[in-house]
């Protein structure tokens, strides 16, 4: 219905005007209203017809239900058929069916013969459901609409039975008893006629709507045109206004709303015209006022600026100066106008720096520079900018001078201070440094670095972490710890060694301090590194001296101890010696008696041993006592000599070979306990050495004892040899063993008194100390050569007697 409108409407213009929109709106409204009316009409009529049909069906079903009541009760086939046929007399009824209450079909009569049985089989299940509903809800009719028919159901209701004999008598005693559904009837009504009627109805509705539309649209067009004609005129007037012509007016034809609008439009145009004139006047006034105010403000600014400003013409004449400049030059601001600027500035008669202005006048370039004006005794930062006219030609210049004397002075002071600092930093031998917190950048390092570290400053700047490489490997961990600590912002102090490229080691005392911002955040570190190698060496020497002092003291105490001990031991030892002598003599006297006894009376025991063995052993035992006692006496004497220091008599010519032999024989039994390979390799034709043979014997005993005690088993060798170096003037006694050997730290300390690796096994730590002392007394040397696991070689070098 809508599409034809576009083609038949000749008034549609390409641009949708107000008129078109109104017309389209009206058309749409009419269309919607007519469509809505048609739909409502058709819908209502359809519902009405359908309801009529259903009502008819209900009535017919109820009628059949009532009529067949007795027939259903009696299930009388003839009566049932009669009742059903009665309903079939109605033209619209297609079939009539009666069911018993349990769903059994009692009779089915249809208009078209033969159709009944087919329906019966097809529809029984559906009917069973409807029966169940009707049983639940007795007395109510019920209908089912299908495509071509309507099925109406009604219950067949029987009155209640009588419960007591009395109730048979009275009709009004039954009210409360319930009716009972005994069957259901179904009447099928033909819908085809209804559908045909509805079809006709729809066509009628559409026709009516179409007939209504044509005149309605025509009227709508007429009305639209009438309404919009004055509007078009208004629009034309408005367009004239829009183009700026405020004098146009619209003719007023009627006194209705549109006429009033035209009136209003005309008066509005008049008002607009008037307003426009007023507005233009006010704007001019405002502009003038603004210009005045701007000028005033500009002048005030010009005079308030602390810079010296002058506007000059091409001939260096002053067009205008500000108050600051006038004051500095000592001229009147107004009077200065027209005079040249350069005489005022520097008393000359020609421009000086205005040579720049001349350049400016030639090429339009702005000048910018610092100038000292002697007349004003100040430094100025001068800017001379060109003034251009509208053609771009230079007509003059703006001279601006800022007094920077104060700043200049400050800069000078700062420069001097910096110079001073540089001198300090570069002169002193301490290294002054400054780094960032992570030491990724060296902010400053004084030149002393190159002297102390032996590396160039450039290498450090290039690789700031390279100073860590210079740190002695043993101190590097310490240094890294400190650098880590530096991140927490604590000051530190550190002593470490550095290795210079030439391999020499220097001690550095380094102190670092955090530099903080006002917020407390650490921005960098600064500090001083000092070469303290000399201090360190002096300190070490001092320590050695102190150690020697301690040693001396220790020896003095030992001497006192030993002399006391010697005295205490000497007395009992003398007694033992004397007793041994006595025993020897006694044994000589006793022996003949005992032998006689043996010969005459036979064998007997002495001290658990048979006499013949004792006769051999006892003199040896006694000799041993005497010998050991003699050794004790010697040791005591040695100790006394040690304590007395050099009190022993050295002026003997001793045979080194003899000394070695005596010592070996004295130790014979001990040697046999420790090794099977003890060898003496004595040099032939040995020259005599100078010294005390007893003391030297003691030394060799000590050395042999140490050698054999160092052997882990009896298969290891100990070789004691003697040799002489006549040219060197000394003899050498060498004790060479294949024992366990000594590590370096033990080797360095073996000569210390009371140092012993054998404290657990009865060592006193005095043997080698005394030996060393004795050899030193003899002006000889005691040398050790040892390696753990490979044995030890001890050399005793003694000066020859002939040299002494």
């Amino acid at each position, binding site marked *: 219905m809508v599409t034809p409108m576009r083609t038949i409407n000749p008034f549609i213009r390409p641009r949708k005007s107000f008129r078109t929109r109104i017309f389209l709106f009206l058309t749409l409204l009419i269309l919607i209203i007519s469509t809505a009316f048609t739909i409502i009409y058709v819908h209502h009529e359809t519902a009405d017809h359908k309801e009529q049909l259903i009502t008819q069906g209900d009535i017919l079903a109820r009628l059949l239900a009532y009529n067949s009541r007795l027939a259903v009760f009696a299930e009388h086939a003839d009566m049932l058929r009669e009742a059903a046929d009665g309903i079939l007399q109605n033209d619209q009824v297609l079939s009539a069916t009666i069911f018993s209450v349990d769903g059994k079909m009692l009779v089915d009569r249809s208009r078209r013969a033969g159709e009944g049985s087919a329906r019966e089989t097809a529809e029984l299940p559906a009917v069973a459901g409807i029966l169940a509903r009707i049983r639940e809800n007795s007395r109510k009719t019920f209908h089912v609409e299908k495509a071509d028919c309507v099925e109406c159901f009604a219950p067949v209701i*029987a*009155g*209640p*039975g009588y419960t007591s*004999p*009395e109730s*048979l*008598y*009275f009709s009004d005693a039954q009210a409360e008893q319930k009716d009972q559904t005994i069957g259901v009837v179904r009447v099928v009504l033909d819908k085809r006629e209804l559908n045909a009627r509805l079809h006709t109805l729809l066509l009628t509705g559409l026709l009516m709507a179409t007939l209504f539309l044509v005149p309605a649209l025509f009227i709508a067009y007429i009305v639209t045109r009438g309404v919009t004609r004055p509007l078009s005129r208004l629009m034309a007037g408005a367009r004239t206004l829009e183009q700026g012509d405020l004098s146009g007016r619209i003719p007023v034809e009627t006194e209705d709303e549109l006429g009033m609008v035209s009136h209003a439009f005309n008066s509005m145009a008049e008002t607009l015209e008037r307003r426009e004139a007023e507005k233009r006047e006010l704007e001019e006034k405002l502009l003038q006022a603004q210009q005045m105010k701007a000028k005033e403000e500009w002048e005030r600014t010009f005079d308030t600026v602390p810079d010296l400003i002058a506007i000059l013409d091409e001939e260096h004449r002053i067009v205008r100066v500000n108050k600051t400049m006038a004051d500095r030059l000592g001229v009147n601001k107004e009077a200065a106008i027209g005079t040249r600027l350069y005489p005022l500035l520097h008393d000359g008669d020609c421009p000086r720096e205005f040579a720049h202005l001349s350049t400016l006048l030639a090429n339009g370039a702005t000048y910018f520079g610092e100038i000292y004006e002697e007349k004003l005794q100040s430094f100025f930062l001068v800017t001379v900018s060109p003034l251009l006219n509208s053609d771009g030609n230079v007509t003059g210049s703006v001279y601006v001078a800022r007094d920077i004397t104060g700043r200049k002075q400050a800069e000078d002071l700062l420069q001097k201070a910096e110079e001073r600092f540089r001198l300090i930093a570069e002169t002193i031998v301490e290294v002054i440094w400054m780094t960032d917190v992570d030491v990724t950048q060296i902010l400053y390092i004084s030149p002393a670095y190159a002297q102390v570290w032996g590396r160039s400053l450039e290498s450090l700047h290039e690789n700031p972490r390279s100073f860590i490489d210079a740190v002695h490997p043993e101190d590097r961990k310490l240094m890294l710890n400190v650098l880590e600590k530096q991140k927490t912002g604590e000051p530190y102090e550190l002593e470490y060694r550095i290795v210079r490229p030439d391999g020499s080691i220097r001690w550095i005392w380094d102190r670092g301090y955090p530099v903080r911002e006002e917020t407390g955040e650490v921005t960098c570190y600064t500090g001083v590194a000092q070469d303290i190698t000399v201090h360190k060496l002096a300190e070490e020497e001092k320590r050695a001296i102190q150690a020697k002092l301690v040693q001396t003291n220790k020896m003095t105490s030992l001497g006192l101890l030993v002399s006391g001990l010697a005295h205490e031991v000497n007395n009992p030892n003398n007694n033992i010696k004397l007793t041994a002598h006595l025993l020897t003599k006694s044994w000589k006297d006793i022996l003949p008696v005992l032998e006689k006894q043996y010969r005459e009376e036979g064998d007997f025991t002495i001290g658990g041993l048979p006499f013949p063995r004792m006769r051999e052993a006892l003199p040896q035992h006694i000799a041993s006592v005497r010998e050991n006692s003699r050794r004790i006496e010697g040791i005591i004497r040695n100790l006394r000599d040690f304590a007395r220091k050099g009190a022993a008599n050295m002026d003997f010519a001793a045979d080194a070979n003899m000394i070695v032999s005596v010592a070996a024989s004295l130790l014979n039994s001990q040697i046999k306990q420790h090794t099977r390979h003890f060898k003496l390799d004595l040099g032939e034709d040995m020259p005599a050495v100078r010294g005390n043979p007893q003391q030297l014997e003691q030394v060799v005993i000590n050395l042999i004892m140490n050698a054999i005690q160092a052997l882990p088993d009896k298969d290891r060798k100990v070789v004691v040899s003697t040799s002489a170096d006549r040219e060197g003037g000394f003899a050498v006694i060498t004790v060479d063993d294949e024992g366990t050997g000594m590590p370096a730290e033990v080797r360095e300390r073996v000569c210390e008194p009371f140092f012993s690796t054998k404290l657990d096994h009865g060592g006193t730590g005095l043997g080698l100390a005394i030996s060393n002392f004795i050899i030193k007394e003899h002006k000889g040397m005691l040398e050790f050569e040892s390696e753990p696991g490979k044995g030890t070689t001890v050399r005793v070098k003694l000066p020859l007697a002939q040299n002494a």
Partner: protein
Amino acid sequence: MKRLFLVITAIILLGSTAARAHDVLIIQGLRVKPYDEAVRGFRSTCDAATRRLYLPDMEGTDITRLIREEKPRLILAVGADALKKVRPVRNVPIVYLMVVNPQPIVKGNRNITGIAMNLPPEKFLDLVMRLSPRPKVVGIIYDPAKTGQLVKRAQQAARARGIEIMARDVGSPKEVPEALNGMKGVIDTLWMLPDTTVVTPETVELFLLASQENRVPVIAFAAKYVEMGAVAALDIDGVDQGKQAGEMAARILDGTAVTDLPGAEARSATVKVNRNVARKIGISLDNIDRFIPKP
């Protein structure tokens, strides 16, 4: 709420009892016109003070207790329901009224007596004989379990009058159409008995349809069937039955032992006729008119 209401009702009842004593307590089963008429008849012959209670109003009330409190000298039970309710009471004489077949309820309780609503079959047979001067076969459809006794009495009485009774027994209303069909052409009068199995709204219509089709008159036991299409009915006379019971009650109140007054049947009845039906069937009512008082 309901319990509270009952308590209040009981208090009111007891209170009124205390105020004045009644000789006769009437318990009426239904609020129907015939019962009201019967009570009216009772009051016309027994002038003792009475109090009437309706059974439908007393649902939930312990009637035996109420009677114990009320201490009436006699109870009148109107209707079978009322009689069933008061039957447990043994120490107060009970007179029943408007009960169709009282024997199964009374069961030999010696304090119960009354007037049965039934009319003796002889009276019906008399009516049959007046309708049709030469009756041969009277048809009866009955349920032996309900009206077997009555049918036996009727058969005896019929034999005495030279009438044959064709009785068909049925077990349910559905069998009634078949029984009716079987009698077609055989009987010349159909006698409807007050049998709840046989008489239902549908069967009544069948009876009357059969009556019209076969031109056989139907004799009924209540006036409402005459209105529906029976030719005549021997209707009960409620007022007279009330009077009958009133007389009985008066004698008991005067000291006669209940056992000396056995239960009786109604002594009178009213004949109702439908002249239109009679005309259509072609029956003369002349013999009857003589017995019916003109309205």
